[in-house]
């Protein structure tokens, strides 16, 4: 299923509304990164990736390895909208007996490639998958999403070196560059800049893009797919809490759920945005 630009924008909006509803219902979870990455996930699953929701374990599918597992509400909402499982299940997030664990569990949910949560681990798994695809001359690619705060973990840099060693040009890593982590801004907690230079010095190709803009993302992924001989990092500059005025840019919304009232306010804002998108 390939959506056009207007449809992708609307899909990102739908995903954001689903995230807000899920978190209000769950009463816990991580809205900041989830909302900020809705456009990236909309473009990946409804434009860029080769996958089939009816055959989640199709051998030649592109893999999506979420490394910062705490933003799983955006992945769950995307998978449900893509048809991997009924949307009604989204409201079971974080509840007893639910498939939708607080951090993703492989095997529970169709479309989930890896259990994640402890930061840094998904990146290594993505590297392992890309090695298999390359060695066996398969055409499928590995997309992986990591948070910028996640780059504090040493494990990811071990993975980056290995990806470069094996020239994994079938690995496209999207960094959610939203400048926040739990205790504050990434600049305050542990400065990352110059991030693009760091990746380049590790042998990666770097594409910097606007992570909340559907057209820019399509351009970035198209460019990334054409690169050969090195792994690709897309540094997606995003607004955490995107679309909800009182959450945007604020690190204190990294990991707390909106109340019912806050959720209603957020949905009203997102619904207004949707109306503008529809007439655009």
């Amino acid at each position: 299923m390939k959506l056009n630009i207007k449809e992708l924008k609307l899909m990102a909006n739908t995903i954001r509304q689903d995230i807000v509803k899920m978190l209000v219902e769950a009463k816990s979870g991580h809205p900041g990164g989830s909302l900020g990455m809705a456009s990236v996930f909309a473009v990946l699953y409804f434009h860029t990736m080769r996958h089939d929701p009816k055959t989640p374990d199709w051998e030649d599918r592109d893999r999506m390895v979420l490394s910062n597992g705490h933003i799983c509400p955006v992945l769950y909402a995307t998978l449900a909208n893509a048809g991997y499982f009924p949307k009604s299940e989204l409201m079971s997030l974080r509840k007893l007996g639910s498939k939708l664990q607080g951090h993703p569990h492989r095997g529970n949910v169709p479309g989930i490639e890896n259990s994640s949560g402890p930061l840094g681990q998904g990146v290594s798994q993505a590297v392992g998958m890309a090695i298999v695809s390359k060695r066996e001359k398969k055409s499928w690619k590995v997309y992986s999403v990591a948070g910028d705060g996640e780059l504090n973990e040493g494990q990811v840099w071990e993975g980056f070196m290995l990806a470069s060693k094996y020239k994994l040009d079938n690995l496209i890593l999207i960094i959610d560059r939203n400048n926040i982590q739990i205790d504050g801004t990434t600049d305050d907690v542990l400065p990352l800049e110059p991030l693009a230079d760091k990746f380049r010095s590790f042998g990666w190709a770097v594409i910097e893009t606007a992570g909340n803009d559907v057209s820019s993302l399509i351009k970035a992924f198209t460019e990334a797919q054409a690169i050969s001989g090195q792994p690709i990092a897309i540094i997606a500059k995003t607004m955490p809490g995107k679309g909800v005025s009182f959450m945007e840019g604020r690190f204190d919304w990294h990991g707390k759920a909106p109340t019912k009232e806050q959720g209603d306010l957020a949905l009203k804002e997102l619904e207004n945005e949707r109306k503008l998108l529809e007439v655009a």
Partner: protein
Amino acid sequence: MTIVKKATRDGFGKALLELGEKDSNVWAVTADVSESTRTHWFAEKFPDRFVQVGVAEQNMAGVAAGIASCGKMAFISAFAAFSPGRNFDQIRVSLCYNDLNVKIHGSHAGASVGPDGASHQILEDIALMRALPNMVVVVPADVDEAHQATLAVAQLKGPAYIRTSRENSPVFTKDMGSVFHLGKANVLVEDGDDIVIFACGLQVYEAMEAAKALKQQNINCTVVNIHTIKPIDVETIVKYAKKCGLVLTVEDHQIEGGLGGAVAEVLCEHCPTPMKRVGMRSQFAESGNCSELYKKYGLDAVGIQKGVIEAMKLKR
């Protein structure tokens, strides 16, 4: 008669090579220690299924998880001090929670690694691995058993931990007709019912030697090789604990959480029996050769004899 000595890591390496020959789905990953862990035999023959990650054990576990998620069986090999010593979280979540077909080979385990000193002598790895859901833990007693154990865990779909040593140690299980069945302990000496010694790894041979010496003093021991620590053979442990009424455990590991802990848990629930544990007593060892360290820390046949005599005081 001089006994042949070989390192258990060699048994692993030979089995890995055989598995690679039989099954093109078998991969091997190592962290800059391919020769030391005997993964190099596989690497030379199957370079397309070998991954060298460098000194990066956390990444090694994750990369193997990624490989396994593509339907492969991956073996990760490094010194046990660093894998599982350094990458517990990755083993817990990327391997066990994902329930992926990755086998962890931890070589150079225990005080047996000797001169390298306490930083490299991991004495806590059995405890770490034993506590994990979906994990299987095996500690082979000699090179042949390591070979058989590696082939046996390859039959499983999920994660497993194989603990080996660098030290050349007596080769004896084959001559005794001992066959490895995962989860089924082997009774190697059944001389009497004064005490049962449950041992694993290099301590199995030492325990048999101790039993031989004790027989001269009219103390009749049964010696059981608990090569599989998880799932542990409850039936055999309970059977011999009941029969002998006195238990000694012996291991090159801290007495907390390893074989001693595992046996104590079984006995407490199924058949409370007086017992003593021989092992490292919540301490770090030091540099020295293996036999010197085993002597100093009471992990050799003489130490085990002392342990038995100590334990006999518990028996009225």
